[in-house]
């Protein structure tokens, strides 16, 4: 039996009031509720304020490069499928620098859970636009306001038939914890896009701004209806839906490698007899 405290309690480098604190709390709560042993969980992150999150809890951690957390997590999971692999990084990391990996990861459908801290701004580099910033959002890098159409990760994921697509809000920790638990339990790639305020660099999408717009998908909402999910995923602006927006039961990528059932790579012996036959075939 693990206590909540087994998942760690650390001093962070985040601003007071940052949504990251709540997300971290929800992540720990989800691990605790699922009673996952910290030493069988691997967090992989990139670079950004969000990517520091794994340093503030007890688990295995690989804090890699900006945008590259998904490939690292993919390699890790395929090497040791017994690990619960959770990827945690920001909107810049996943949707900007790592955009190609995001698309490929959805297609591949490895059994990993992606938690995206989406605050619609770059925090670590002090306030440039992110791929999810709204048009007109003024920053020092975009003094005339953002020209580009924002990236809608949830709708892209639904369009690509991701197995589990959810949106949470740092202002609703309990709900977010539930989404993370469901995401971890889903066999295949799970995307949880988490809206969060950045108190220092985003004065538009504040806690109040989200609070006013976010609503819970109703009990009778059917997340397996993809057409409906596409419409729900398109909602943004005055009303922003929270919850599991879409799910399906696509087989996880690992199922294509039957030998993974015999255990992690580290303990799988090399079949030298088979190799000998292979070498012979070159004669």
């Amino acid at each position: 039996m693990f206590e909540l405290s087994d998942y760690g309690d650390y001093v962070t480098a985040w601003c007071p009031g940052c949504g990251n604190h709540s997300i971290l709390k929800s992540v720990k709560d989800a691990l605790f509720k699922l009673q996952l042993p910290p030493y069988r969980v691997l967090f992989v992150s990139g670079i950004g304020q969000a990517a520091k999150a794994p340093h503030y809890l007890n688990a295995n951690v690989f804090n890699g490069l900006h945008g590259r957390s998904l490939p690292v997590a993919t390699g890790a999971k395929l090497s040791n499928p017994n690990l619960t692999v959770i990827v945690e990084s920001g909107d810049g990391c996943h949707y900007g620098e790592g955009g190609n990996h995001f698309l490929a990861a959805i297609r591949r459908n490895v059994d990993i859970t992606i938690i995206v801290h989406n605050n619609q701004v770059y925090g670590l580099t002090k306030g440039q636009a992110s791929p999810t910033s709204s048009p007109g959002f003024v920053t020092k890098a975009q003094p005339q306001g953002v020209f580009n159409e924002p990236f809608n990760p949830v709708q892209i994921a639904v369009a690509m038939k991701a197995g589990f697509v959810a949106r949470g809000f740092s202002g609703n920790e309990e709900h977010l914890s539930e989404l993370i638990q469901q995401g971890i339990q889903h066999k295949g790639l799970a995307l949880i896009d988490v809206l969060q305020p950045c108190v220092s660099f985003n004065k538009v999408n504040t806690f109040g701004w989200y609070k006013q717009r976010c609503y819970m998908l109703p009990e009778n909402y059917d997340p397996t209806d993809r057409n409906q999910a596409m419409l729900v995923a398109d909602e943004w602006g005055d009303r922003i839906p929270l919850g599991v927006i879409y799910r399906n039961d696509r087989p996880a990528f690992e199922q294509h490698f039957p030998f993974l059932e015999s255990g992690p790579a580290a303990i799988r012996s090399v079949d030298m007899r088979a190799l000998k036959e292979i070498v012979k075939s070159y004669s």
Partner: protein
Amino acid sequence: MPNTEANVLIGGEAGQGLVTLSQILTRAIVRQGYYIMVTQSYHSRIRGGHNTYALRISTSPITAPKENVDILVALNKETVQLHSGELSAGGIIVLDEALEIKNESYVSVPFKSLSADKYWNAAAVGVVTEILGLEMTGVEKVAREFFSKHSPEHVDANMESFAAGLDWMKKNDLKFAKLASAELKEPRIMVNGNEAIALGALSIGMKSCFFYPMTPATSISMTICEHAQGMGVVAEQAEDEISAINMAIGASFCGSPSLVPTSGGGFALMAEGLSLAGMTETPVVIVLAQRPGPSTGLPTRTEQGDLEFALHAGHGEFPRAIFAPGSVEECFWLTRKAFETADEFKIPVILMTDQYLADCYNSVKPFAIDQLKTIDVCVPEPIEQPHLTYKITDSGISPRLLPGFSNSCVVAHSSDELVVADSDEHTENGHLTEDLSIRAKMVEKRNRKFTGLKSVVLNPESVGPDAPDLLLVSWGSTKGSVHEVCDNLSNSGVKAAYLHFSQIWPINSDVVSKILNKAKEVVCVESNSTGQFAKLLRRETGFHIEKTILRYDGAPITPQHIMNRLELGTKDV
């Protein structure tokens, strides 16, 4: 008198069945006990283009390709136009009568009357079998194996064409001496450099290979993919090379010895990941199969132009090792060595090959698989609790633990067994730090691995008299050519030696300086235009090699190229 050697060049368009023709002949030749070296030259396209296979066959061991052609098998006019000038004295040209190139010395084969169109290459196998004087039933057996994937009618039609070609040639008198018979002393296999790398990786216990296809590295991954399920290897085509190396790092972090094969452009994309492997101290093996650059360059040709890039790729300072196999056999053994080195020192290791060696087939002894060790990633001794991923040690190497495991690969059972790795500068426990004194200690820790790496370096192969008049210096794929040149020079009374590097980083400068200083004249031979290796040696040893023999037209360095430069003073190309 029978020939002890023959150089057969088969040329034509892609799609004409060159591969089948060459492979049947090659395989049969190897089984009949001859030594063989097959080099390929091709255009970057699937159909058309001019492609050649050069089969150098000998009754004694050979190490390099040859430029003069004894038998030119021309499947199209272009082959005749491009290569008739390469014909040796007494050489012959075999071509299709339908090409209507009239010359009395040409062997014009009436393929149309011998076989249906699509089986003509089987007929050509028959013709060449008879010209070379190969043992007919042996070739027939290989051909049958080869065609057996097709339907029975196809096999029969192909075999009939083969017999028709053979019979036709028998009936036509030819003034070309047959090959002396060879004796098969021990079984040999026929692999190219890339296949040898793939087999080497499988033999050491590689468990994952991530790649994005890029010529001339692709066939490494393709060979691994072919055997992946059976060997329990995850082989996955990544979305790009950035992903490939990051996947490999993630896999290796969790206990899979991992390989990423690529060429220069892909390696450029991997530079950031290379640095990540250096910082996180994650073992990873990168194969850099070179082709001429810059940029897209000549995709299907050869060059050794990425040496300085491989030495310096990746931001920041971190130890690395670079191997460069000098033969197909070395491709196998040095791939193993690359994995061992990466695992022992927890660093990225680069294996540099090039298109010439990648595609070069050689008959080699079957690798003694039974006697080979595999990498064991499980730490046997009990770990310090809590585990410190980056524990500061004298060697700079920290005891390694895999996430999710305790020592000896028992499943983890305590939060003292957490593994934390970071691309930021970090403390011993792997968490990010901005403490400058820790930073300095970590830099020194990583650098200390270099001392260990130097102590196990593969010294260059030094062959020939102790104080030679001429010392040829080379690295990587040019070894065979340099070797042959030295043999020839020695036979003609020149006091020649060679110094060949199959590990190009780090370099043991004391050992190397001594050898360089003893020679009267030193010449560095390499496939690039700026003499990158000569510069590296100068930096490391202070020895300035003034004379270089370079080649940068995309063709491999042949013994003849070196001899022309040495004797005739021809210019580099």
